């Protein structure tokens, strides 16, 4: 097996980001097709194709779309381009290289859910991507793909880009909605769910960049052809952002169900010379870490990783070789979640800080072996008790790093230095 370029087929083409370059590669053809279909037909197609959300949770997209109540209320489509999950950088590439692909995917999706207005919520640091998108949107308006009565179909749609300020929590869909509404970026209590009461308390669909772009190819290829890639429960291709200790890190599009071992060794050129694989974080830092043995057995699909008690998440794969100290790495992760918790829910607000402090105590040589248990107990009690999944996302790395690499933690506490690096935290970080 190898890379299968469906979304990324033309990404090498510099012109692809302009409307002419995109049109030259049959761009906006599927929009024309879609506008001649019934909206519900498109939803059924997406359902049958089994497209699952690429933002993290893997929720079936067609099903999400059909949750919208038929109450005549205005509907909103929001594209989640916040891409906050550490180690994820696929949406950025998609927006920078193929803005029209996202725009086309969004107009089709908006038509399917009958939304007149959509926003791309893009993280603040992505100013280049935001720029590219803005230009592309203008081009799309000029060509009549956006605005009133698109291509004479009677369907009108407006699209805008909204820049966040670089908060991870604004990637959580209701946090994003709050931010878009001009409120503090804090998730909202559910129920009600966004499909019923979302942006401005109107029915709202939130989808990831990749999810929305994928819709085009389901329309183009049809259900059967689309399902040729991937597995029964995880159809299609997916972009993986591979980073860390491989020779060729980067974004790779492979069918879901692709063996992780092949991805590391074939696509990414293997590990650096003389290094051994120690661990892999398969879905962004929120996903529980896999040991090397697990990683070599894993296939990149929702089911396999769930069976391994991890998750596909955002598709960010972090390769960790034997020169890395897991105690050090966990500190980076706990720091991140401590910094990013919005602070509403007590277990998350206090727990993320507590976790980080315990790991820091280990780094500083102030911890006792009991602290390892406290660490796990705290993490365990942060799970499933909060408004959004950030609390779980902070707990899961701890609950996988510690049991799977416990000896490294014990060594660190006993000796006051890293087992792998042989030096203390202070020496490691000057």
């Amino acid at each position, binding site marked *: 097996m190898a890379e299968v370029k469906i979304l990324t087929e033309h990404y090498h083409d510099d012109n692809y980001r302009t409307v002419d370059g995109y049109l030259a590669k049959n761009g906006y053809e599927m929009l024309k097709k879609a506008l001649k279909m019934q909206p519900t037909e498109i939803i059924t197609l997406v359902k049958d194709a089994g497209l699952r959300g690429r933002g993290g949770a893997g929720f079936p997209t067609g099903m999400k779309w059909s949750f919208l109540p038929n109450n005549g209320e205005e509907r909103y489509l929001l594209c989640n381009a916040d891409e906050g999950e550490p180690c994820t950088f696929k949406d950025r590439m998609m927006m920078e290289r193929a803005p029209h692909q996202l725009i086309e995917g969004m107009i089709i999706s908006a038509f399917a859910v009958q939304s007149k207005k959509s926003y791309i919520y893009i993280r603040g640091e992505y100013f280049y991507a935001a720029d590219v998108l803005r230009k592309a949107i203008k081009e799309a308006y000029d060509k009549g793909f956006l605005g009133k009565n698109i291509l004479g179909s009677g369907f009108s749609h407006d699209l805008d880009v909204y820049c966040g300020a670089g*908060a991870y929590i604004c990637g959580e869909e209701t946090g994003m909605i709050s931010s878009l509404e001009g409120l503090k970026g804090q998730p909202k209590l559910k129920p009600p769910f966004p499909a019923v009461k979302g942006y401005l308390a109107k029915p709202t669909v939130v989808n990831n960049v990749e999810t929305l772009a994928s819709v085009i190819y389901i329309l183009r290829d049809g259900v059967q052809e689309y399902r040729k890639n991937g597995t029964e429960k995880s159809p299609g291709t997916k972009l993986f952002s591979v980073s860390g200790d491989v020779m060729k890190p980067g974004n790779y599009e492979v069918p879901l169900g692709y063996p992780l071992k092949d991805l590391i060794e074939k696509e990414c050129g293997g590990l650096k010379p003389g290094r051994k694989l120690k661990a892999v974080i398969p879905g962004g830092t929120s996903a529980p870490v896999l040991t090397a043995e697990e990683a070599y057995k894993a296939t990149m699909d929702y089911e396999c990783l769930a069976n391994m008690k991890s998750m596909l998440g955002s598709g960010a794969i972090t390769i960790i070789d034997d020169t890395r100290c897991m105690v050090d790495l966990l500190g980076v992760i706990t720091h991140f979640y*401590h910094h990013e*918790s919005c*602070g*509403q829910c*007590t277990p998350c607000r206090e727990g993320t*800080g507590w976790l980080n*402090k*315990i790991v820091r105590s280990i780094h500083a040589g102030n911890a006792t072996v009991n602290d390892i248990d406290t660490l796990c107990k705290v993490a365990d009690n942060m799970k499933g008790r909060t408004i959004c999944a950030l609390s779980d996302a902070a707990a899961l790395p701890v609950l996988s790093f510690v049991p799977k690499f416990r000896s490294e933690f014990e060594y660190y506490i006993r000796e006051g230095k890293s087992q792998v690096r042989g030096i203390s935290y202070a020496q490691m970080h000057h």
Partner: protein
Amino acid sequence: MLKCTINGKHVEVKEGTTVIQAFKMLGEEIAHYCWHPALSVAGVCRLCMVEIEGNPRLQIACNTAVTEGMVVTNKSEKVKDAVKWGLDFHLINHPLDCPICDQAGECGLQDQYMKFGKYDPEMAEKKVNKHKAVDLGERVVLDSERCILCSRCVRFTEEISKTNELGIFNRGDRSEIGTFEDKPMTDKYSVNTVDICPVGALTSKDFRFKQRVWFLKDRPSVCPGCSTGCNVDVYYNREGFWRVKPRYNPNVNDYWMCDEGRDTYKYQNKFDTVVVGHRGEKEVMKNVNRVINPMHITGGHAEMMDVQFLLQKISEKLGASKPADVALVVTGQSTNEELSAIVSFFASKFDKKNIYHWQNEPEKWNEFDGLLMRGDKNPNTKGLLKVLEQNGVQAQLWKPSLTAGKLTIVVAPENHSAYKDFSAMVKWAGSGQSTIWLGPGLHEDMGMQGEWWVIPGKTTFEKKGSFENFNGHVQSFEPVTTVIDAAVSADEFVTLLKGANFLEIHKIYRNPVERVENQFIFERGEM
């Protein structure tokens, strides 16, 4: 109606009822901080965990609607463990300096810990430091380290007082309550945030560090501050009153009262500052607020008198007066019982035309701020008008320009600051030949001119009686405690004039009422 089972008890609830409301209906205990019956659901403290049959995940009771046949418990080990941890997360960065915290004794953390916690702390790390003693304005002080970020205060200013003055700034465990650009709060209802704050994060400037709450007792009464008549609890000890807090009444004031109303205890105390002790070298002076003894004043010279003796003299004086020579001044600050006694007594003996209604800024009487505060700063204007009507009296409006007659009985209002023309009244009364003055408060000009018969009056919190509020709601109340032993109400005054014995009709209220745990937050504030 939906049937559900809560901790094994069956209950029927209305559609839309939340699980926490069902718990409350049954009187089942449930831990919670952020939920408040009068505020929107925040769902942030995560303490109200319950186990619902058929759902593997614990749910929060405050944001879960009851469904038909739902079976809920919070007695399972799973829930107990979750609540224990929920409390622990609240406590890890909490200063836990209860001995120097003003909330101790009525603190949600203390209470819930005693009910649901009781474990050894596991937190060994350094606590987060935040701002201490932040001045939030005229009446409220914030200690951010004690704050558990339940957002009740924020929701109060958003949803009830609608000033939107409070917000949560920063995020994660750096979050702190504050006002925009640190502007002082101007909210006229700000102290309600102190009431609903489950911990010692928000404290009242007026009350903080003055008393330990377990040394205070409280009794219900009605706020005399305006014609709304908010239901209140008055906290007192042997020295007098210390604070006033709202008592829940869905027909009048819900859970709230205004800040001004909270000051009404001050003029009812013997001294207006009951600060005992020293500041540096100096002792803080107490200012006398109240008339303490019955007196007869002539030519600026006061003679203390036994109340029975004084009354005998007054009785003789009234008996010797011609009906047309006696006048009566009344206000809407007296109770129905007082007014009815004094007006009918007067009407039966003297000329009804000589009854004056003393009004304070009547042009403002119809003002209303949309929540509770009304322009009529008398708690019983409606009652007064009714009493006058019942006695067939067409009262004249009192004006300082009128000439005072031979003998005037003034039933003075207790809240002097609400009466801009109080001095004018005192001068006017003094310009006549003789004044019988029944009122609780002292005024510097009293007795400067003319002859005065001064009888210490009772204040609302000392009285038994009733007020009729702006919309005809009659509210009775009992005495909270007695501050001035010699004080009498106007109805007692009439009974005494009719020949009763002071010692027989006069009761002193000081029976202590034991307070059971944290009533305010858990029952009245409906935590």
